């Protein structure tokens, strides 16, 4: 009898992910929407640049050029797309009853969760890198037409691209953890939207606790990590990039821990 190999579980999860018609569509639509939002902002700047005041032109590189590469709207769409895909990886099994078939075939539930986590994180990392890289390259190529595009080697650029790329696996894992906990599709997606998108919009950054809360969310961390140069407006509650990276790591690790505990303990 062949040994129970973990890489067989990885291969199976890979097959399960891509054998759903919705998967390639979700990835494609997500990417197009994010790039569309960012490109739209960039084209507007490209068009209006000659009319900008000297104050704005002075700060355009790096502050505004970077904000065109990674707009907040784009990040929100990206969060929703990747978080939903991450949630569906697990809720799709609970919601349909497939989970019982899965666990009857592989009673070692933690191994299943580990395989799902690894496949999801890897795919999302590649997807995030692709979308962030393309967004940066395309928007800066447009801005080069006004001589205000940035290069990947410029100060803070690599960090911003990496943070935008990593937003995908972080949000996907958050959706995955929440999905493992809630197990219902609609409940999970609504909660995910509430936590990752609505909550940051409700927080006031100028308020001390509001800032603390905002900084503890993936969107707050992403904002901090994509900031380059000197902020055009005063920052009331500054924090370090290291702190922001820690928030990313904590969300990913926390979500995976929740998934492991929830899936292992409960009846299906």
């Amino acid at each position, binding site marked *: 009898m062949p040994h*129970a190999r973990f890489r067989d579980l990885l291969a199976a999860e890979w*097959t399960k992910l891509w054998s759903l018609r919705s998967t390639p569509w979700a990835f494609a639509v997500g990417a197009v929407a994010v790039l569309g939002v960012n490109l739209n902002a960039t084209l507007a700047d490209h068009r209006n640049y000659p009319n900008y005041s000297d104050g704005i032109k002075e700060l355009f590189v790096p502050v505004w050029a970077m904000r065109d590469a990674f707009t907040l709207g784009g990040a929100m769409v990206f969060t929703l797309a990747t978080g939903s895909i991450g949630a569906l990886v697990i809720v799709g099994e609970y919601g349909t*009853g497939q989970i019982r078939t899965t*666990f009857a075939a592989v009673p070692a539930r933690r191994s299943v969760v580990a395989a799902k986590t690894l496949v999801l994180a890897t795919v999302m990392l590649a997807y995030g890198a692709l979308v962030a890289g393309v967004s940066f390259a395309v928007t800066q190529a447009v801005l080069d037409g006004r001589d205000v595009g940035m290069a990947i080697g410029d100060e803070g650029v690599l960090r911003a691209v990496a943070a935008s790329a990593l937003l995908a696996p972080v949000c996907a894992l958050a959706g995955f953890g929440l999905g493992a906990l809630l197990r219902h599709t609609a409940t999970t997606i609504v909660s995910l939207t509430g936590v990752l998108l609505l909550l940051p919009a409700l927080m006031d950054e100028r308020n001390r606790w509001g800032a603390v809360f905002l900084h503890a969310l993936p969107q707050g961390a992403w904002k901090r990590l994509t900031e380059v140069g000197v902020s055009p407006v005063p920052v009331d509650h500054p924090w370090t990039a290291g702190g922001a990276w820690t928030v990313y790591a904590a969300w990913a690790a926390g979500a995976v821990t929740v998934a492991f505990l929830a899936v292992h303990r409960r*009846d299906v």
Partner: protein
Amino acid sequence: MIEVHELTKRYGRPSRFRRVGGIRRPASTAGPAAGRTVSAAAPGADTGPAADRPAAGRLAVDRLSFSVKPGRVTGFLGPNGAGKSTALRLILGLNEPTSGTATVDGRRFRELPRGLRHVGALLDAHDVHGGRTAEAHLVALARTNGIPRRRVGEVLDEVGLGGAGRRRIGGYSLGMRQRLGIAAALLGDPPVLLFDEPVNGLDPEGVLWARGLFRRLAAEGRTVFVSSHLMSEMEHTADDLVVIGRGRLIAAESVAAFAARGTRRSVTVRTADPAAARSLVDALEAEGATVRHRGGRLAVTGADADRIGLLAFRHGIPLAELTAHASSLEETFMELTADSVEYR
């Protein structure tokens, strides 16, 4: 070989509230039966098995013990809500028992890293993601257990879905889903097979095919455990029966032994003329038997054929017919589970 020992499953946590006259009140003010959830509204009114249940929660499986032997088809019977599906989930480690153990070939199923080569199971034909094709579903399942890919084609052909493998499961009929579930159970060529209501949705030909398949799997020396809420379904398939009601064991024995339990044996009697019939009825009723008229014949319960023949002889009544009937398995099943039918 499946062994179940004192298996108990209670669903839900003990509630701090219990229902009194339709109003939910905290347990501390609920009266003498506080801390005990009894389904009936009035304390003490329930004298059934529920009355001696300890703390709150629904007992789906209650100290269940039985074993299922290899080389035989064992039918798992009980009315709706008897706890059959819960028991099967406990055996498969999908649900954690409150107490007791269930083992497959001596091991708790959840201790196995991979399951398909040990137990093949069809619990619910709907337990699949409808967005995948049957082939993709089975390929992924096979891969998790290191089963070669060619098995997918083999089992699809075996269950008659060879031509539908590339279609999405979402478009399958219930019968096709049952076949797919059976295919998944066969994937790992396992020594133990569990099927929960497998013939639901199958056409008559499919039912015959499934029966033949279960018989063949048992003949190959495998343990085959098939649940149903219909006795008639098991009558032609099973060697042994495990019968439960309200989560408790009612019988675990061979089909023959189960059939012998039936007490509603009746005897059909026909006499030559109505006058003779009247005097025979009087004689039988004097003996304490029950007689009903059925289209010119008498249906007698409470006296066996020997006794009736002797009575007729003594009273000089000529008999035209005297036929003894054993109660059918279905009747025996209904009789034994009558006390534990929950939904009617």
